[in-house]
């Protein structure tokens, strides 16, 4: 069904039982043609692999032809909703358009088929790209040093908390308490526990920001860090951020910025200027790395001067290329992190020949590695291409339109009486997203936020994030992003209005939705009670 059309209840789709690839094919069928064994058998006739190390039965992998594989996966792909098919206002996830240029450049063999242990002298293009990306992320965040290693946002968070811990331990302090507002993403507290620290919750004030009095009461010499998303998960920029930073720094703690909502402020306000010491970026949000149905992502971190010695290793560094016939020359001055690099950034397709790039492992205070090799380079290529395309003005424009679109959609949802049932939880304006409360809808129209979300599926929309943040009753968190048209936003607002109207007439329609999807509502309780998590085979 096309987005925005008024949904009729269609007839139930024919009963098609989902079958896995393991239930298809036939014994002896295959796709792979193995190259012939072209080497002689061992002269002494010895077994290459002793029987006690050998597998006796082959793994029961599918036995299918290549056309069968293609049909199978193309078939099940059509049981997915995706960003290219329709509006995806999933709050805090920044589902903006994924330019296909990025897939094309990431697939170039010089990037895609580059071995991670290739000698740095033979991977200068990759290291220069990483250096340029570090420089850009440094400028966007207002913090001088960058590591591209973390694999996703939560991995960047873990890096950040371990960095904080290392910073305090280096000063001979054991601070173990981390302050986290009650609006925070679940990854924040989970990360704190994994880093061996203790979560202290901070209250939210009436305006939706941090309760500064609560912060003052809890900030003390045992506090290691405050983790904050700004704008926060209510879509609000904390008006007291300068005061908050002063309080946190005043007790010697660090300030951590969860970059999930960076898409609101690129080129407009910088975490470093707000007083943050550590920032993580979600390249799969703000910088359009396609999310792939649950990854890959990439979660680089930027840090202040005092945190830099502890960054994960290796770091990409740049050196002046020695003049003359090299080897005997004095060692070149090394440049760490991102400082000073921007003038020579990606301003043209001409490549720098004055510099050489390297991986620096000699970082004695480093927290160490967080994963193998240099990070999710393929994601870095895409993010870098995006930054090259947009440039300084384009990034700012992206954030401005993201905020414009969110406020426009919010304004449209105040029309048609929607606000009566779905009021804005906090504030009057918003940044790039906003949170509505479905409480009045539940009481007045007898449908829950979940019902509204499921009914939206029949209208061809991905629903907003639901039931988060936890402090809002029946929450709906809506993030339209900058790449949507006004027409799309209008259509979505109309769809919400018509679902509310429909619920006023007959709440059962929404309560039993969806109708037009490959399956109806699924029994999640039974799935968790007696889990079946793999295909049974004979």
């Amino acid at each position: 069904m096309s987005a925005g059309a008024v949904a009729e209840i269609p007839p139930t789709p024919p009963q098609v039982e989902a079958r896995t690839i393991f239930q298809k094919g036939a014994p002896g069928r295959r796709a792979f043609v193995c190259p012939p064994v072209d080497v002689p058998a061992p002269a002494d006739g010895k077994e290459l692999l002793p029987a006690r190390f050998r597998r006796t039965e082959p793994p029961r992998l599918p036995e299918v032809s290549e056309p069968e594989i293609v049909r199978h996966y193309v078939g099940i792909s059509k049981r997915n909703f995706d960003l290219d098919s329709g509006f995806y206002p999933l709050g805090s996830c920044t589902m903006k358009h994924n330019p296909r240029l990025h897939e094309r450049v990431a697939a170039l063999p010089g990037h895609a088929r580059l071995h991670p242990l290739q000698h740095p002298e033979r991977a200068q293009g990759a290291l220069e790209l990483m250096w340029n990306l570090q420089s850009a992320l440094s400028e966007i965040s207002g913090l001088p040093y960058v590591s591209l290693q973390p694999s996703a946002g939560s991995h960047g968070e873990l890096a950040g908390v371990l960095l904080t811990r290392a910073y305090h331990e280096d000063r001979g302090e054991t601070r173990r308490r981390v302050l986290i507002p009650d609006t925070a993403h679940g990854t924040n507290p989970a990360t704190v526990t994994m880093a061996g620290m203790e979560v202290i919750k901070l209250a939210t004030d009436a305006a939706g920001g941090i309760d500064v009095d609560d912060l003052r009461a809890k900030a003390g010499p045992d506090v290691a860090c405050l983790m904050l998303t700004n704008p926060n998960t209510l879509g609000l920029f904390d008006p007291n951020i300068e005061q908050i930073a002063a309080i946190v720094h005043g007790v010697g703690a660090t300030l951590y910025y969860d970059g999930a909502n960076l898409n609101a402020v690129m080129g407009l306000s910088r975490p470093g200027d707000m007083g943050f010491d550590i920032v993580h970026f979600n390249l799969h949000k703000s910088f359009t790395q396609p999310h792939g149905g649950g990854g890959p992502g990439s979660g680089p971190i930027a840090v202040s001067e005092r945190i830099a010695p502890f960054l994960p290793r290796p770091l990409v560094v740049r050196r002046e290329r020695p003049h003359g016939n090299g080897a005997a020359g004095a060692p070149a001055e090394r440049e760490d992190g991102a400082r000073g690099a921007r003038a020579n950034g990606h301003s043209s397709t001409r490549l720098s020949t004055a510099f050489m790039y390297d991986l620096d492992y000699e970082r004695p205070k480093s927290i160490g590695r967080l994963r193998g090799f240099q990070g999710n380079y393929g994601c870095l290529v895409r993010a870098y291409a995006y930054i090259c395309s947009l440039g300084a003005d384009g990034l700012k424009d992206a954030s401005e339109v993201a905020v414009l679109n969110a406020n426009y959609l919010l304004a449209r949802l105040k029309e048609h009486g929607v606000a009566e049932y779905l009021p804005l939880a906090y504030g009057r304006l918003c940044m790039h997203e906003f949170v509505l409360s479905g409480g009045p809808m539940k009481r007045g129209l007898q449908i829950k936020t979940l019902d509204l979300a499921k009914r939206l599926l029949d209208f061809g929309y991905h629903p907003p994030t639901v039931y988060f943040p936890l402090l809002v009753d029946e929450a709906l968190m809506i993030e339209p992003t900058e790449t949507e048209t006004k027409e799309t936003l209008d259509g979505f607002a109309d769809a919400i209005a018509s679902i509310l109207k429909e619920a006023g007439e007959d709440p059962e329609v929404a309560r039993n939705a969806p109708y037009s999807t490959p399956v109806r509502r699924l029994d999640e309780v039974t799935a968790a009670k007696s889990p079946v998590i793999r295909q049974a085979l004979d």
Partner: protein
Amino acid sequence: MSRYTAITDANLDAMLAAIGVDSVRELFDRQIPAGVRLGRALDLPGGMAEQDVYAHLRALAARNSSVEDELSFLGAGMYDHYVPALIDMLTERSEFLTPYTPYQPEISQGGLQVMFEYQTAISELTGLPVSNASVYDGPSAVAAAGYLAKLHNGRRRLVVSAGLHPHSIETLRTHAHGFGMEVVEVPLTDGATDPGEWARAIDAGTSAAIFAQPNFYGAVEDAEALSAAARDAGADAGGGRPVVICQVDPITLGILKPPGECGVDVAVGEGQPLGNRLDFGGPSFGLFAAREEYLRRMPGRIAGETVDAEGRRGFVLTLQTREQHIRREKATSNICTAQALNALAGVVYLAWLGRAGIVELGELLLARTHYARETLAGLDGVQKLHGRPVVREFAVRLQADVGAVVRRCLKDGVNPGVDLHALSGRAEDVGGLLVAITEQRSRADIDRLAEVLGAAVAAERDRTVAGDPAAAGQAVAV
């Protein structure tokens, strides 16, 4: 209006009027305190047209030597196995490429079924009943398994074989510091974990015992003996014992005895060999499989089977009460976004390889790797680093400076392998070269490697004898 946005002047006027503000700037000025507004343009270059971005990224790519530019025997964690074309086609489909994590199962059956199939394939491969839907990569999977062990038995020490990839050991150390755990390394003898040292290092305070199969040096370990020794040595009076963790190389599991039949509790590994490209080290995926009793302590997403309101088979994310978005500080892991698209490539690859193919491929790798090892070890100044069986990778010791030998080989278009000491930093690895063989390296390629490597070693030994390092240094500049 800039790239990828769509707001015309007329749209803008209408939207501002609806919001009730005069300008976009007002939206920001009313929300962001004056003291933290940037108030200047970002110091970044201007935007570029699509074709110019392409040209720039292509020029950068051209400054890298990929496996298409040289005869490469690099491995040590990531390998140049062939990625079939259908994987590109499927992973580029919008329906798989562009959705978020499947929070709405009714419109995410495709992605959820892929996870379910992936879990099945990993379970079959490892011989363990439960698998999650992927973690970041191999080394971080080792660290995640260490955390599972801590949650499971509360013990504080992780005993790890020096046969683990150095990146895995370092990643484990980084994370273990956060978990409040100690990491103890057990040395190797003749390329494999020393059984006596292994048993001595493990006691009732050992939370997990971790080894790799095959190990970093290519050696096939006696996995059953290591598992049994860990269980015995780490048993306590209350029936507790360490969690036995094995880092596997999934592409060898067509012929190697699976961890589930070797007494292993948790198998982790780097998924890149399964249909994922090299990408200079990522993204790929980490596999994570375990015995049933660890199911509720697993990290990450797990897809489960269920039925819809009309009784039809369907799939959902399940056991979510383990996860950070529900349990917050009590979660079994902080992981959220993982590697779904890379796991899709993995399961499509395994279906493409198939039941017979994974065995045939394993046999081919085994035969070629053995041939390559014997051929190289027959060269003057080259010896086997150990005598253990090898499957897809092996180590030799050169009686010459490895870096200089590698540079000489590169001049002839051959990248002979990984300098072991440069990667591990271990004194005993000086002179070590780690050579990886895939189905894309034929006998002729291996013979070419032997020819070039033999000449390079001979030349380096001559130079050392002649005692003229400066001249040689110039001659071998890359």
